[in-house]
């Protein structure tokens, strides 16, 4: 089980990174980037670094995502959502 996770999670990271690169909408990129951070925090748990897991979950998935989304709002890139 653990071995499968250890192999799948890095692969998922790469998939996420590619998806961020090639998605056309900025909102999609940002959402995928946030999930990238969540996968990262699971990996930190697997690597026995709980400190990093907490920090990554709070910062990467929380604050960075928030800042990115607000930037998108400011640059009017949230097309197709009710927020525009």
């Amino acid at each position, binding site marked *: 089980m653990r071995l499968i996770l*250890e*192999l799948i999670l*890095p*692969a998922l*990271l*790469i998939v996420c*990174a*590619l998806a*961020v*690169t090639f998605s056309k909408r*900025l909102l999609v*990129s*940002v959402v995928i*980037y946030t999930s*990238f*951070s969540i996968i*990262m925090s699971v*990996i*930190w748990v697997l*690597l*026995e*670094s*709980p*400190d*990093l897991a907490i*920090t*990554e979950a709070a*910062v*990467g998935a929380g*604050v*960075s995502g928030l*800042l*990115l989304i607000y*930037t*998108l709002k*400011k*640059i009017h*890139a949230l097309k197709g959502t009710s927020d525009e």
Partner: protein
Amino acid sequence: MEHLLINHYETAAVILFGIGFLNLLLQNNLVKKVIGFGIMDSAVYLFLASQGYIVGRLAPILVGEVANAADYINPIPAGLVLTGIVVSVSVTAFSLALIQRLYQKYKTVNFDEIVQLARQKGDE
């Protein structure tokens, strides 16, 4: 090849580093450049932390009275990564703020267009 599979975290980290690096260099969209920078930094941290991991050992939080170095993983990478994460979130916030200001001025986040518009303004 086998070595790469055993060191799969490092391999993935190198690939991610490449993706982030090329994003930072080649993307025209500034927001994606910033995300690329984030990916690049996370890749470096993944690399560092996976080098600190040792199979079968515990997280560096003491259990019991006596500490034996053979029971715990290396705490140094975790500390360094913690510092690094703070640095990268600061840089992200700074660059996003800069992007907002550029958008206010040029109404676009495409860097090539911004450079071109700035050049036109400079000529006038």
